[in-house]
């Protein structure tokens, strides 16, 4: 057996070596990442159900304010940060290995995995101990235990290792393949890594210069508005760090899976580049209601936020057109009959199609959130968690769940167990989100705030108008929980008891017209540079003002 699939092995025909080894051996690194992601998913789902029941004031045995706010923190961190980051890292390694024929610096990749797992454990323990109930936005002056921030830092440093491995693999591949367009799946993952580097630079400033020394007692006070500004420098591109990998699946995997072609390769590249450019200089649309930031800068961030609608609208067309191609190839000729020809009983396709449908609704909700003044109608109401359960909670999470059904046979060489349960699971998730997320949009419009243990407000009259809806949303939570369990049963069942089969190939969609030679949309350094310029334009002056004006920073407060 070779020592490791190092660069030397890759250049002398890694493909041949890989064919001889079991897929589970070749993809050990990826499987380790997916494993952590799924454990985090299970824990995150378990903390969720009690929250939706609590808001509707169901009297449950374990229910208490403390449990509720701890579980909101755990849910946000485990699903928003841990599940997504590990899943995306696993996907990135897999696509690099398959499409570039290599994962360079694999030792760094393993070291990063250990560091990220260690950090995750540290943060999770800090949350469960009750010392760090600051929710996943951790706005100071609420102060968590230092291990909460330090653990999160390790997770992020681990993800930087992933970025380095991915970029290094691309550079080495390019040296050997001059003029060849970057394989589209890798193009999207590299865009993801660049978005992540831009995003986490802001988080690093907040955590390393403010929150870690502050929680260790090295500095007494931090400024909450400056901290929030760095947080949202990170917080919005974070959502594209989640979304772009889902788009990679939509563009490059699902069209092939349903027997179609990718409608346009070059537009997909434009889309990924636009996410590099416009993901980050938009953070003030999360701070519209904050004092301390002049409205002119908020307006500028509104404009850049709307720019980012464009790549998603392109995606809607291209991916649906790719589905139509699949239907036409099956001989359908009518205006809409190709829709019926798509494999709606296939859990992977159903997941992606329902994810896209949710994103169409969630995307327009996002346009309302970003609308400068209209935001006041929905800011910090239940609308907000309704919104991100349609976007990250369905568009991204359901795509990833669906992808697991595709990955399991290919990575483990096992046939899916309980195929009927798997086929029903995406529909259950979609139904759960109709009840939970869509309804929370409505209660948000009616004025119900987010993140409340109980929405009764001591029997205030207007709060009574929310009651029916909080009960509907609680049932949505139950349906979602059942769906999450069904998913985990299929995944764990397949891993343990799946019938061994020869692993199907990891194949990607061919474009309708062959990809053009490597052009300007493959020049990542250029686009990274443009993105940095846009960020400087959006943030330099307001941050300069905040740092130089007279301020009164805050000492820490522990929530309870």
């Amino acid at each position, binding site marked *: 057996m070779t020592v490791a699939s190092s660069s030397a092995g890759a250049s002398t025909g890694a493909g041949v070596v890989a064919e001889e080894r079991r897929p589970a051996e070749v993809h050990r690194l990826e499987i380790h990442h997916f494993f952590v992601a799924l454990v985090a998913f299970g824990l995150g789902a378990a903390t969720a159900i009690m929250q939706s029941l609590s808001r509707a004031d169901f009297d449950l045995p374990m229910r208490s304010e403390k449990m509720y706010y701890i579980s909101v923190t755990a849910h946000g961190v485990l699903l928003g940060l841990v599940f997504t980051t590990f899943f995306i890292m696993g996907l990135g390694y897999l696509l690099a290995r398959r499409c570039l024929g290599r994962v360079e610096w694999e030792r760094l990749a393993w070291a990063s995995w250990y560091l990220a797992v260690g950090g995750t454990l540290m943060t999770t323990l800090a949350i469960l101990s009750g010392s760090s109930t600051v929710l996943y936005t951790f706005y100071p002056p609420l102060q968590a235990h230092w291990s909460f921030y330090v653990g999160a830092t390790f997770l992020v440093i681990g993800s930087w290792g992933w970025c380095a491995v991915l970029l290094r693999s691309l550079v080495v591949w390019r040296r050997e393949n001059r003029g060849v367009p970057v394989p589209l799946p890798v193009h999207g993952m590299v865009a993801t890594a660049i978005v992540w580097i831009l995003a986490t630079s802001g988080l690093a400033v907040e955590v390393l210069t403010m929150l870690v020394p502050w929680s260790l007692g090295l500095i007494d006070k931090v400024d*909450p508005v400056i901290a929030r500004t760095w947080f949202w420098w990170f917080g919005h591109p974070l959502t594209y760090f989640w979304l772009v990998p889902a788009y990679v699946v939509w563009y490059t995997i699902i069209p092939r899976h349903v027997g179609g072609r990718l409608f346009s390769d070059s*537009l997909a590249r434009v889309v990924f580049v636009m996410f590099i450019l416009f993901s980050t200089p938009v953070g003030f649309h999360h701070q519209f*209601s904050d004092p*301390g930031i*002049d409205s002119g800068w908020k307006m500028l961030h509104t404009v850049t936020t709307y720019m980012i609608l464009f790549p998603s*609208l392109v995606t809607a067309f291209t991916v649906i057109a790719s589905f139509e191609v699949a239907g036409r190839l099956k001989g359908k000729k009518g205006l809409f009959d190709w829709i019926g020809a798509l494999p709606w009983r296939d859990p992977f396709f159903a997941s992606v199609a329902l994810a896209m449908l949710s994103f169409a609704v969630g995307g327009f909700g996002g346009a309302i959130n970003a609308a*400068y003044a209209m935001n006041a109608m929905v800011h910090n109401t239940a609308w907000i968690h309704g919104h991100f359960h349609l976007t990250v909670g369905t568009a991204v999470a359901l795509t990833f769940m669906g992808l697991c059904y595709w990955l399991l046979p290919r990575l483990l060489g096992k046939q899916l167990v309980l195929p009927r349960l798997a086929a029903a699971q995406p529909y259950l998730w979609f139904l759960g989100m109709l009840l939970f997320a869509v309804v929370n949009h409505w209660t948000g419009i009616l004025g119900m705030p987010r993140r409340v243990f109980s929405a009764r407000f001591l029997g205030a009259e207007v709060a009574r108008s929310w009651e029916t809806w909080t009960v509907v949303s609680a049932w949505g939570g139950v349906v979602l929980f059942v769906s999450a369990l069904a998913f985990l049963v299929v995944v764990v069942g397949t891993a343990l008891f799946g019938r061994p089969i020869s692993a199907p190939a990891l194949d990607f969609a061919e474009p309708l017209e062959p990809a053009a030679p490597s052009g300007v949309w493959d020049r990542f350094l250029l686009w990274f540079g443009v993105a940095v310029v846009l960020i400087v334009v959006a943030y330099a002056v307001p941050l300069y003002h905040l740092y130089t004006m007279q301020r009164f920073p805050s000492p820490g407060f522990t929530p309870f």
Partner: protein
Amino acid sequence: MKVDLYERIWLWLASGMIAAFLFAVVVGATSHAVHPPSHVEVVDPAKVYSDSEFATDLGVTPSADGGVTVRMVARNYVFDPPVVHVTAGQPVTFRMTSPDVVHGFQVVGTNANAMVIPGYVTQFTTVFHQPGEYLVVCNEYCGLSHHLMQGRLIVEEVAP
């Protein structure tokens, strides 16, 4: 770059829609002066109750524009004062701050919705047209009893 005709039409429609959204935002901001609360002013959170306008002038006072100024402190887990009376149709300028953590100030059923952040003064002006009793909630998590933090805004009819 070669783009399919239908896709090109779609891209123009998408661009048109985004332009329309932005146009609406810019028109609202420029001709109707619709802005989010973005006041820039600081206050020492340690001295809110000892050495600031919030120590002496809490509640409703007449202001220069013919309306009233409402000074409030949001703190764990109350709005101080908890009940505020204003008159319908009259400009109301809110000035608020927090001596502890970040709070939200949301008058349910209206567009009055702003963050209250220690060290800063939140200020915005609005008009309430509908008389009635409004629930005020804190919409930013502030601790164990966040969901109990509430106040009332009573909008009274204009005296005949």
